[in-house]
């Protein structure tokens, strides 16, 4: 009998809010969080940026975002103190924190050949997951997933595999990323950034806005949670991942990879498409992503599929996106309502549906969160609201 994995804790920081409660308030408020255009020092072009409002250090920022969200989730799961012998793993995704990409360090190296070594010391102190494990006394398996924009969702898949393989009892899982000049410049060079606020799935969308944040959940074996006296209404039902095998930056033109990942997740969950209530889509607001993902969703679920992208509230948070959206999907199931797809105004004739435009009650038990990434990685995770559990 396969191990059941439940979600016992949630933590999140993004432009939408510094925690779960403030994020829900933002969704109910119906307006976008204030963005800080050009806040990132030294940016040459002015684009909207979705920054976290919590006052956190600029240096080592991804780590600080991650540890804040992780502490929220551990508190939610009543795991602030990890019991002796409890095998707690850490699997988190990132794109910025896995690289030594300190620009002043490199500038000094170029100009003088003798840069200060503090950035190197910070880098070799440990990967994001390793440092979280040390800070949070997690003694189980540790992994930093660097799958670009699907890292957070892929981390969820790893956590599920670890728990089913009995490698640990619970996992701190999700993703974190700070705003950084490097992806900012990189996405600009790819012509996928929008100079206006992003409009996921909209006919007139012009591209993505970058954001920062962290989304962390605690995945736990049901048996372990029961033993600790902790209950949860949310179960992680299934996970699927599939590679396009097509191109370094462009998704498969027919979205075969994301469709495959979704179908794998459905099969893993043992359910059919009509049981899914809604999809928290990747929905970056680029021309290509939304068209391709939208059509894939319509193929699997029909054109009446209920879709929301929360990137209108958070921007595209890269390695954090999968983690943040996992938390938002769980919250929607738990609270019984889905946030609207802010920024949408007009249906794109090339996309067979319009996303949800107002707060919508949840009516079924299952929800799906999808992520598509550079290099053609596609990942999908299914959560369900368990009946009869408090």
């Amino acid at each position, binding site marked *: 009998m396969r191990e059941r994995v439940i979600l016992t804790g949630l933590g999140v920081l993004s432009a939408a809010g510094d925690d779960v409660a403030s994020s829900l308030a933002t969704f109910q408020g119906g307006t976008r969080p204030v963005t800080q255009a050009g806040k990132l020092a030294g940016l040459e072009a002015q684009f909207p940026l979705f920054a976290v409002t919590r006052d956190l250090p600029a240096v080592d920022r991804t780590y600080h975002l991650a540890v804040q969200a992780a502490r929220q989730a551990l508190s939610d799961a009543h795991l602030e103190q990890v019991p002796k012998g409890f095998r707690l793993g850490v699997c988190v995704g990132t794109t910025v924190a896995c690289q030594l990409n300190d620009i002043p360090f490199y500038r000094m190296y170029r100009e003088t050949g003798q840069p200060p070594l503090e950035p190197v010391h910070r880098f070799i102190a440990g990967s994001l997951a390793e440092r979280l494990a040390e800070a949070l006394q997690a003694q189980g398996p540790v992994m930093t997933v660097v799958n670009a924009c699907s890292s957070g969702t892929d981390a969820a898949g790893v956590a599920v595999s670890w728990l089913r393989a009995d490698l640990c009892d619970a996992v701190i899982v999700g993703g974190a990323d700070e705003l950084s000049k490097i992806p900012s410049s990189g996405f600009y*060079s*790819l*012509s996928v950034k929008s100079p206006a606020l992003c409009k996921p799935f909209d006919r007139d969308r012009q591209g993505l806005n970058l954001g920062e944040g962290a989304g962390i959940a605690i995945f736990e074996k049901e048996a372990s949670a029961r033993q600790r006296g902790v209950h949860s209404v949310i179960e992680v039902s299934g996970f699927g991942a599939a590679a396009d095998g097509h*191109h*370094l*930056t*462009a998704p498969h033109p027919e979205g075969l990879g994301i469709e495959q990942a979704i179908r794998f997740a459905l099969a893993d969950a043992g359910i059919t498409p009509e049981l899914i209530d809604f999809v928290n889509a990747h929905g970056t607001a680029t021309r290509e992503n939304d068209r391709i993902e939208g059509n894939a969703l319509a193929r699997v679920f029909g054109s009446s599929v209920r879709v929301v992208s929360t990137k209108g509230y958070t921007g595209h948070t890269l390695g954090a996106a999968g983690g943040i959206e996992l938390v938002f999907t769980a919250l929607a199931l738990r609270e019984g309502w889905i946030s609207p797809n802010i920024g949408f105004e007009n249906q794109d004739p090339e996309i067979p549906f319009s996303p949800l435009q107002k707060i919508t009650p949840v009516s079924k038990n299952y929800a799906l969160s999808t992520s598509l990434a550079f290099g053609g990685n596609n990942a999908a995770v299914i959560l369900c609201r368990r009946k009869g559990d408090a």
Partner: protein
Amino acid sequence: MMDALETKLAEIRQRLKELLVENLNLQDVTVEQISDDSPLFGGDIGLDSLDAVEIVVILQRHFGVEIKDMDIGRRVFQSIRVLAEYIYEKTNP
């Protein structure tokens, strides 16, 4: 006048070919093999969408020509000849 113009355009075409071979790592293609009028995309050279945005950067760095809109890009990237004419136009207003 026409000879001077054609000479200038020919120089731009040659430089473009050199830059494409070097910056797009076209390993099996030589400058001589790139014709002036064959399609750059969907033709023999096999350029794709990533090459298109890379060409935008090449134009900025080496000619000071900016393409802000990829719709313009799609129009002027048709061939070396069309692209050279666009560069000339933008640098000799």
